[in-house]
């Protein structure tokens, strides 16, 4: 699998990320940046794919970005990326962070596989995929979320990401990483069960999988909070998510 090759890489290993501007046909100011540990939010392009795409078509939608000086290692912001994004978005976006959904997150075109949203009442985040049509604890269904935050906007508190990205090392690392995850649709959770277990183990909370609520627990913050307290979800004891 292509994803496996990338899985062994870390953002620190490379000096070049890749842009993706395929979605500018309908979100004209949106610019994706793909790093080894942040695959494209559509789930279709990882860093390797972008590299290959560039080598096949050097003037295409995937351009190399020399990331340059790191401005914020925790939230994931680089000078070179900012400069590229500002130019490619024609001034609409001046900067964004790779590893945060709370502070100036990356923009979203609308074709994201999943959308993560902050759940202030639970001091955590949730994520929902395209395949789940029901209500979610943030009060918005996937389609509403996509409408609210799509179109190339950076919407603090929300970020589009791929399914694969959930278990990548840098997933919302600046906000506390995967340990912030308090709710996912059951099907999505089960689909990536093995990878969640593995990642959770590495983060030192091997039973995280069973602590993440799903729609069988509830679809409002009020419903899932008692569950999180009962199982002792790590997010509850983290720093407040809304600063």
């Amino acid at each position: 699998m292509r994803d496996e090759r990338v899985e062994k890489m870390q953002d620190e290993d490379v000096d070049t990320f890749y842009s993706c501007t395929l979605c500018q046909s309908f979100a004209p100011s949106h610019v994706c940046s793909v790093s080894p540990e942040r695959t494209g939010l559509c789930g279709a392009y990882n860093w390797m794919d972008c590299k290959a795409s560039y080598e096949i078509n050097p003037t295409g939608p995937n351009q190399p970005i020399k990331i340059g000086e790191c401005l914020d290692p925790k939230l994931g912001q680089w000078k070179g990326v900012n400069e590229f994004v500002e130019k490619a978005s024609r001034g609409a976006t001046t900067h964004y962070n790779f590893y945060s959904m709370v502070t100036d997150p990356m923009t979203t075109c609308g074709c994201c596989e999943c959308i993560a949203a902050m759940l202030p009442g639970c001091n955590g985040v949730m994520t929902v995929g395209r395949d789940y049509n029901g209500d979610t604890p943030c009060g918005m269904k996937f389609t509403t979320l996509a409408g609210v935050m799509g179109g190339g906007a950076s919407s603090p508190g929300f970020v589009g990401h791929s399914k694969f990205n959930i278990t990548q090392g840098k997933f919302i690392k600046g906000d506390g990483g995967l340990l912030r995850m308090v709710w996912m649709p059951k099907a999505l959770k089960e689909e990536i069960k093995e990878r969640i277990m593995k990642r959770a183990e590495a983060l030192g909370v091997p039973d995280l999988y069973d602590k993440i609520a799903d729609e069988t627990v509830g679809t409002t913050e009020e419903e899932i909070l008692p569950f999180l307290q009962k199982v002792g979800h790590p997010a509850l004891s983290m720093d407040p998510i809304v600063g």
Partner: protein
Amino acid sequence: MGLTGIQIFKLLPKTNCTECGVPTCLAFAMNLAAGKAELDSCPYVSDEAKNQLAEASAPPIRPVAIGAGVRAFKVGGETVMFRHEKTFYNPPGIAAAVSSDIAADALDKKLKEWNALQYERVGLNLCPQLVAVKDVKGDAAAFAATAKKIAQESEFGLILISDKVDVMKAGVEACAFKKPLIYAATADNADAMGNLAKESGLPLAIKANDIDGLIALSDKLTGMGLKDLVLDSGAREMKQLFADQVAIRRAALKAGNRSLGFPTITFPCEMASNLDMETAIAAMLIAKYAGIVVLSDFKGESVFPLLLERLNIYTDPQRPMTVTQGIYEIGSPNENSPVLVTTNFSLTYFIVTGEIEGSRVPSWLLIMDTEGLSVMTAWAAGKFAGDAVGSFVKKSGIAEKVAHKKIIIPGYAASISGEMEEELPGWEIIIGPRDASLIPKFLKDRA
């Protein structure tokens, strides 16, 4: 301009009481940030937060409601300069004008004709919404009588046009229940018109000679406590009006100019000597930001293209148009009629339906919910896969309506036939033409 959803959220009560109509404070904050909600909807927000939020959270262009009943509508509330940036929300009102001295039978005839101008397209009823009553001789009684007749005997909303306050007052009394738009407050009568609008709680149009004049008037009336304003920059010449429309929208959205943060009203009927030219001007205005266009008349050939143009521009480009999943009867099909299946993208549906109708072969058309994707896209996205289509056919209940077990699938989805056969034992899966235009020949050859 522009607090983010999170910044707004921090100032809200965070109780998720749902009384504003959305399930969480966060969702409400996002709507506020997008200019799609008003802070007043939250009953528990603190005064301190209110002050902080008022400026940032009011929509940059205020939505104004006009009319009552089935043709009531809202204009304004827009958040972008160009449709592709997001979407346009509230389609403009289309109006035709009558004089206040029109004879009752002539008015009857017009209302009857105008009422008939309704068109079904993509499951929507397209129709103009307004009649404008123009005061001609300062005759308050005639003005009120005409307004009353329109308000009571038709579905149309009204625009009351007079610069005389006493005449306007009579008109307002006659039809206030229909929530008419008062046109217009000018520099000369702003106090009196403003008070009338305030007392009656009706939206008020303001007319000036240029944009600077509009700003002065708008500030004055807002200062009097009026909220629902509609702007007329006074231009009656194409180039200047176009420039004004763009300038007003830009000022409200890009410069955060509150004085110009209202929808506009325009008068093609005062800009040309014949309805054809008026219609052309109206077409330009519908594309370029007008909140209301007033024509001198409605004719099928003039109003229909405008309604379609309006539909096209104001549909949400982020969502494909869809039709409801189910069984559609075309012609009067019986138990031996052919059964076809396709996706619920509205264009697919209308093209396929049109071609089946054209074939004059009565048929059953099964429309499957593919989230608005066309045949090839749905197939590529796995939403028109053989097992899914098969299971849909099974559950649709078509088997009880026909005496045969044959189903025609789109030619471009030929590769799903094998899986469909597995899902539908005993059914014959027939591969139809790739292009809808070949459906008539296909159906006739089989009949």
